[in-house]
């Protein structure tokens, strides 16, 4: 008999909250089916099951907070015998008419002073989810300003902010960072992109981020020391590349979903992978497979107008790639001065796992790859 346990959805996750079940005893499930929504500090995650079988017993109830690894349900594999008939427990009394909402929706509603009882949920079974609270939030008047002279109320850290604080403090404490940056002429890459998009329907259009990610993956094949983890005092390079992508959330905060097995993906596949991650992250529908440990993270703040990103590596990863805004700059080549669209690319490296020469080779490879976008 299989046991479905509270998954680990982040390097620092200790506990999670079962939001609600999407299956009941007797339901048949297949590997990859989403069977529950689990709340963490950062987001509500759609949790997938990793085996085929039939749901036997649900051992956790909505709202239960349990440590990572706690058994949440039992699933009978197709080959296993059914569990002996147990006398069914008396049905619990119906809960008082409380509002059904995901843990993340509850937290956002509290932060934004939105009354959950006034919202019609659009999630499964009428559950209120994050986008329902977002839609309701814009109609809420701002809270009363404090009277002059009143002392500032202390602001409790939101769950997400707390998670980010813990991860960033740990990174700066543990990881000896080195930083490198380089300017990349994007004229050829952007021209290639424009041609590629001219023959693609709108929904398949490629963003510059897709070719940047593809170039990162190709450059990592040349400098594999940057792709992996630092564990128990040793570097552990990874054969597969799972690209963490830093996604800014509209109400603030950051989440790092992961494009799994990015190595063999074409630029179009990379764009679809990126699109899936960003949309699921922003609508609060991330899946467990989105949050499995990335082997490297890419952060792209170019859209906000920031030119250079000197980021902080997310442990236990050993590198972070940053892309700033593409902007027109004077560019000297062959003794002539021109204007080119230039991108500042940065690498933050863990000096225990790699050194400046590795980082420089990586950025050099990235540059060369982006000058030949048709070979990506």
């Amino acid at each position, binding site marked *: 008999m299989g046991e479905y346990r509270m998954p680990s959805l982040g390097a620092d996750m200790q506990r999670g909250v079962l939001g609600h079940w999407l299956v009941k005893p007797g339901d048949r499930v297949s590997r990859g089916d989403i069977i529950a929504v689990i709340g963490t500090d950062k987001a509500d995650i759609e949790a997938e099951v990793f085996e085929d079988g039939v749901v036997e017993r649900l051992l956790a109830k909505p709202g239960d907070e349990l440590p990572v690894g706690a058994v949440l349900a039992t699933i009978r594999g197709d080959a296993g015998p059914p569990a002996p008939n147990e006398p069914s427990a008396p049905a619990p009394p119906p809960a008082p008419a409380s509002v059904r909402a995901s843990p993340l929706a509850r937290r956002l509603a509290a932060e934004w002073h939105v009354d959950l009882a006034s919202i019609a949920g659009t999630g499964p079974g009428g559950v209120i989810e994050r*986008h329902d609270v*977002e*839609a309701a*939030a*814009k109609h809420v008047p701002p809270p009363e300003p404090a009277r002059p002279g009143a002392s500032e109320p202390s602001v409790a850290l939101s769950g997400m902010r707390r998670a980010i604080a813990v991860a960033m403090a740990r990174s700066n404490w543990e990881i000896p960072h080195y930083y490198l940056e380089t300017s990349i002429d994007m004229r050829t890459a952007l021209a290639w992109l*424009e041609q590629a*998009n*001219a023959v693609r*329907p*709108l*929904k398949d*259009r490629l*963003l*510059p*981020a897709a070719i940047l990610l593809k170039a990162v993956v190709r450059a990592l094949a040349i400098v594999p020391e940057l792709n992996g983890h630092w564990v128990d005092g040793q570097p552990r390079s990874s054969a597969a590349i799972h690209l963490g992508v830093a996604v*800014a959330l*509209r*109400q603030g905060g950051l989440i790092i979903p992961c494009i799994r097995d990015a190595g063999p993906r074409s630029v179009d596949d990379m764009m679809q992978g990126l*699109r899936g991650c*960003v*949309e699921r992250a922003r609508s609060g529908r991330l899946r467990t497979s989105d949050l499995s440990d990335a082997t490297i993270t890419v952060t792209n703040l170019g*859209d*906000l107008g920031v030119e250079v990103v000197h980021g902080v590596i997310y442990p236990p990863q050993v590198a972070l790639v940053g892309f700033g805004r593409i902007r027109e700059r004077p560019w000297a080549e062959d003794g002539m001065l021109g204007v080119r669209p230039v991108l500042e690319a940065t690498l933050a490296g863990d000096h225990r796992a790699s050194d400046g020469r590795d980082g420089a080779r990586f950025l050099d490879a990235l540059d060369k790859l982006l000058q030949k976008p048709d070979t990506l």
Partner: protein
Amino acid sequence: MTKSEIEAAVFAALRQIAPEVDPTAIDRELPLRDAAEIDSFDFLNLLIGIQERLGVEIPEADYRRISTLDSLIAYNSVFAANTAPFPPLAYPPAES
């Protein structure tokens, strides 16, 4: 379609990607990316939402013409009108 119908469609597409933004309250002459704090992903999804509602597929070469809310509505007002099929030609032409 009337201009206000086109405006309503653009507003609906904008609300879908930025539900907390009130399209009637933002500065229509500022670049939309700043006025509504949307990034390149949001912008692409906005265009997809507009295409679903108005049938207009905006080529990438025209992005610089639609950077503000006003210019986006004006662009769609021109091109949404032109997506209606032309009436069939009579052939051979009627003899005068």
